[in-house]
């Protein structure tokens, strides 16, 4: 799902940095308004980002291959507006520690995956709000599923838009559809994973779930 260095023209990379800076500014500004005490959110988002990073080391057995959870849905549901900077920092560490993604494409990857986390946040809030924790499973399922599908669609679109203009548009459209369809089973698994985690957290540590989603 990470776009690596060298895959995109510099204009895209610069646009990605501009877009991620704008989204990071929007996220922090909104977080200040929503949570009031942003200082409290800094250690919370950072330590949770580290935990998400560790959880993404867990490999899901999937027929033929093994994949790791993306967790953008879970991050959106738990961290709310702070999910975007947390995703950005997690991507930076993935590039530094494992060479996943890249430095020139860090902005683009942040926009596609951090944007997906914000979409998941919106979905989670729309379904889970006012349910008093009764709809955690459904909201988590929808957030996890939407996170993967939107990240896959955005990444594929960016990759194909970055290709030279004389690539057959029909083939481009077919490739986008195929890539998104390939990610649907993964999105279902991630949705179930997110839903189970959210249900567990709602039962064990409700203060984590309340106020963020």
């Amino acid at each position, binding site marked *: 799902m990470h776009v*690596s*260095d*060298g*895959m995109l023209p*510099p204009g895209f*990379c*610069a646009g990605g940095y501009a877009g991620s800076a704008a989204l*990071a500014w929007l996220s922090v500004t909104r977080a200040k308004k929503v949570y009031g005490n942003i*200082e409290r959110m*800094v*250690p*919370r*988002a*950072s*330590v*949770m*980002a*580290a*935990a998400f*990073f*560790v*959880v993404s*080391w*867990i490999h*899901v*057995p*999937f027929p033929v291959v093994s994949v790791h959870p993306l967790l953008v849905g879970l991050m959106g549901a*738990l961290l709310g507006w702070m999910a975007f*900077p*947390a995703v*950005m*920092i*997690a991507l*930076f*560490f993935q*590039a*530094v520690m*494992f*060479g*996943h993604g*890249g*430095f*020139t494409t860090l902005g683009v990857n942040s926009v596609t995956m951090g944007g997906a986390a914000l979409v998941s946040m919106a979905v989670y809030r729309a379904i889970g709000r006012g349910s008093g924790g009764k709809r955690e499973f459904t909201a988590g399922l929808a957030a996890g599923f939407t996170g993967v599908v939107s990240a896959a669609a955005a990444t594929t679109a960016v*990759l194909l838009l970055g*290709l*030279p203009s*004389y*690539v*057959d548009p029909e*083939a481009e459209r077919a490739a986008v559809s195929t890539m998104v369809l390939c990610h649907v089973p993964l999105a279902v*698994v991630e949705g*179930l*994973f997110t839903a*189970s*985690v959210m249900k*567990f*957290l709602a039962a*064990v*540590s409700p203060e*984590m779930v309340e106020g963020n989603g």
Partner: protein
Amino acid sequence: MAEGISRKGLLVKWDAAWKVPSILLLMMSMAFTGKPEYFVLSPFIAGIFTVVAGVNYARLFKVLKAPLALAVAMGCFMVFFSGGEPYSAGFQAVSGDGALQAAGMVSRVFSVVTMGFVMVTTTPAAGLPASMRRLRVPDIMIDMAMLTGRYVMVIGEDYRRMEVARRLRGGRRILSPGAFLEVIPQVAAGLLVRSFERSENVFRVMKLRGYGASNERVRETVGPRRVDLMLSGVAILLSAALVVPELL
């Protein structure tokens, strides 16, 4: 900084506040190249940097594997689905322009990923926060990055301990997909609960140390040294050599 890299190496001495923008500029220039003659020049420049840095080639190969595989897959797509003059390759017509673009993509991915690897392996972590401040990265992002870096290993150790405990209680090492969805979310959620509690303690400690008392941060105003100017100059000249002929 990676193990095995000499602390006295030329690229290690290069201040991160100068090195990061210079190498990023060079990486962007490499990503900009499209002429066939640069398909060799860019990897050659990246190769010289790896030799000067003295990087671990086994680790570099490991980092290059996935991006190169993706570049080759994208290249195949371009070969078969691009316009331009078609050539017959057995049962399928392929595009000459597409093949050229595919070769360019593989060359760019190799060069840019290699330069990123050189940048990371020759930058000591200790001076990174100060360099990031000098680069005008917002304080909130620096604080978050430092805290995340500090706790990744701690939480990773927590996870390993939880996994060992689970297996000692009779849990299987390899789980079926069904069992996976039953067991692992609980492990992950347990880890998140611990991290949440830890973050509350971290916040209290940060407050006691004066975090948030003042927005003023110390920004070192160290001027560039000769080595910084020289190496940044080399990187800028190389970038210009790659970009200017492309624009003309």
